[in-house]
């Protein structure tokens, strides 16, 4: 018999608050952190809005750590599992590659340029000359997990999942797998994204994925792309009973396209069905959707939900925190996980900020304006990634 996995503590550091309760209260009120980018001059960029965390300056040594550490501390303290031996505590973090500050990148590139091209030997020398400006923590995805392990003195499994927009959800799934398998007794897990910088704003702009209007409004018929966000969401999981159980997980690949979801939502459908089957459930009361606010993704996810829940879909309340917090990339799935846990633990179903005129092609029982309070026995959380990876998780009220 597999070991059950419970949610013992959560923490978050977002553009709406320095803790999960602060963030949750703002989300429940329908607040949005999306605003014009102020941390650098974004004039002329394809999108100039983001849900940035202004209180941590862009020049901080590693903004990912500035977000992840307080979120992890909050989750850790809430869990109260300090007596667990260090060897039995694992750390599982969803993170992508960090970046040095933009001025450093510019200096490197200018020092390396020759004849309108790039001289790699000059680049190597320039990189070495600026070693102190390129601290390991700024470029290695694994730096966050290693730092958290050191901070909390853990000596168990330590893994970094780099699965783009599904990284945080995939890290939680990996933590659950490790707990179920008995490889550890406590898992600190979640995701962090610190991508509101010129390079990523340019990169996602090049893809045409960002909202030109600068508004994140998942499932709204006026939606025109996602808005970048940043932050961290962490959870402490263990086999010690708590109010919320992580009952089921599912992972699939679309095997379709490097950025676009399969039009029939096949990969997403399979991930949700696997998670429900793993949980032994046919339905849930709440779905915390991936809901990015891009025209195609939201429509495909809505169709996938219809395929999974059929006639029951009318009773399933659906929302996405990306309307308020933007798309936090590697943190996104973990933030959705916290929203799902909140629904199960307290019956607070958070709204989709920015959603005012639902798209008829996304015919769902949306939560708009403010949070609704209801009894929630189970919630489904979705996280889908560039590259076609799909993660779904089922959270449930513990028996």
């Amino acid at each position, binding site marked *: 018999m597999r070991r059950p996995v419970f949610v013992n503590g959560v923490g978050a550091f977002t553009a709406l608050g320095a803790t999960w309760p602060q963030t949750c209260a703002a989300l429940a009120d329908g607040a949005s952190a999306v605003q014009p980018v102020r941390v*650098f001059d*974004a*004039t*002329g*960029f394809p999108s*100039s809005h983001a849900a940035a965390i202004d209180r941590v300056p862009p020049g901080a040594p590693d903004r990912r750590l500035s977000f992840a550490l307080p979120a992890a501390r909050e989750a850790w303290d809430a869990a109260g599992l300090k007596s667990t031996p260090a*060897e039995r505590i694992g750390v599982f973090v969803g*993170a992508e*590659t960090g970046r040095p500050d*933009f*001025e450093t990148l*510019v200096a490197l*590139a*200018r020092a*390396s*340029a020759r004849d*309108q*091209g*790039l001289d*790699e*030997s000059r680049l*190597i020398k320039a*990189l*070495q000359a600026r070693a102190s400006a*390129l601290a*390991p923590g700024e*470029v*290695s*995805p*694994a730096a966050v997990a290693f730092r958290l*392990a050191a901070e909390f003195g853990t000596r*168990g*499994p330590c*893994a*970094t*999942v*780099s*699965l*783009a927009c599904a990284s945080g959800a*995939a890290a939680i799934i*990996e933590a659950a797998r490790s707990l179920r*398998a008995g490889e550890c007794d406590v898992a600190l897990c979640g995701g962090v994204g610190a991508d509101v910088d010129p390079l990523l704003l*340019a*990169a*996602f702009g*090049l*893809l045409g994925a960002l909202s030109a209007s600068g508004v994140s409004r998942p499932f709204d018929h006026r939606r025109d792309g996602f808005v970048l966000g940043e932050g961290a969401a962490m959870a402490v999981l263990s086999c010690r009973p708590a109010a919320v159980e992580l009952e089921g997980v599912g*992972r*699939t*690949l*679309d*095997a*379709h396209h*490097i950025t676009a979801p399969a039009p029939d939502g*096949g990969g997403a459908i399979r991930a949700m069905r*696997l998670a429900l089957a793993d949980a032994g459930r046919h339905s849930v009361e709440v779905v915390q959707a991936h809901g990015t606010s891009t025209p195609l993704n939201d429509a495909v996810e809505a169709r996938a939900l219809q395929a999974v829940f059929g006639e029951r879909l009318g009773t399933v309340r659906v929302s996405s925190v990306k309307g308020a917090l933007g798309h936090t990339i590697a943190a996104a799935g973990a933030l959705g996980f916290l929203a799902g846990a909140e629904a199960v633990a307290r019956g607070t179903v958070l709204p989709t900020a920015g959603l005012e005129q639902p798209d008829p092609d996304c015919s769902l029982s949306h939560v708009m304006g403010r949070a609704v309070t209801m009894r929630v026995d189970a919630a489904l959380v979705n996280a889908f990634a*560039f*590259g*076609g*990876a799909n993660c779904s998780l089922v959270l449930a009220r513990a028996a």
Partner: protein
Amino acid sequence: MSDAVAIVGAGAVSAYGVGWRGLGKSLVKLAVAPSVELAASHPGVLCSSVSEVPSRLDAGDARARKLMSRAARLGAIAMREALVDAGFHDRREEIGAWMGVGASGVAMQDVPCILAESVREGALSLEKLGERGIAACNPLFTFQTLNNFSLCHGAILEGLGGPNGAFFSRGAGTVTALAEAVHSLLEGDCDRAVAGGADTALHPITWAELVRDGFANRGLMPGEGAAVLALCRRSERPLALLRSVAAVPEGGDIASLTLPSHADLVVLAPWGAPARALLSDLAASRCSACRTIDVSLTLGDSLAAAPPLAWVAALDLLKSGETALVLSAGVDGCIGSVVLRQGGP
């Protein structure tokens, strides 16, 4: 591991070319890989690089390759080879895929293109960057940036749709990827899976990191490549059985690694000299061995690809009834161990 998972195929691309059969035997003979001096970009540095891949063996078509980082391209080749080798031709949407992946490594040539259009009066202007610099960039640039694309390009080309994971790796993450694949097979999440890693230590930024952190001065030879194992829960005629897979993070309890008391073959994949000594001592203290080889002497350290290249080298060298212990030590300080047995449990 209470049960064994069968290895039924493999794929690899390394300095020895595309393919895994014969790779281990070449290493035993200490045949020198076609290492070259990186005179142009890395003066005085010897490396183990993958020479040009014949077009019939390359990944995807020209358009698809434009979207790929080098690691993604190598990974897609190894993934295809493993699937073909295993005869995994049908129901590919059910096949799981786990990869250890490095930082993708975008084409650096785009950077000066952006900057040339982004400078105003001798200084960088973010406003000009937004208005003109972005437009000067190859729009495919973005597709090369995400680490998981080293998994996803191959999965898309080959139609893999099962459970999956991309673990960032400087060595150990790839062992974790294999452990995850084994767990999913044993739990019944999937009946078949591929697991491996792809990476290059030759990308200018990666190499600069390795130099900065002192690894180059301590004997690390940069390498590149990819290797993938094809796995299933049961097989009538497996190439070998996976008896144990484990990874211990830096500072973790090495004694927790499950090592056999005897191995006919020990294959080491250390990043450099200090790690070589550590792995040799570990193997000698816990396991008697008939023969030992060190793949890093000719293949260098290909980071996320180093452990799986050692796995396929061991696979190539195993004889009927033999057991192999493969130990890897990456620049992340983690140690991975994999035990293979040929000829049934």
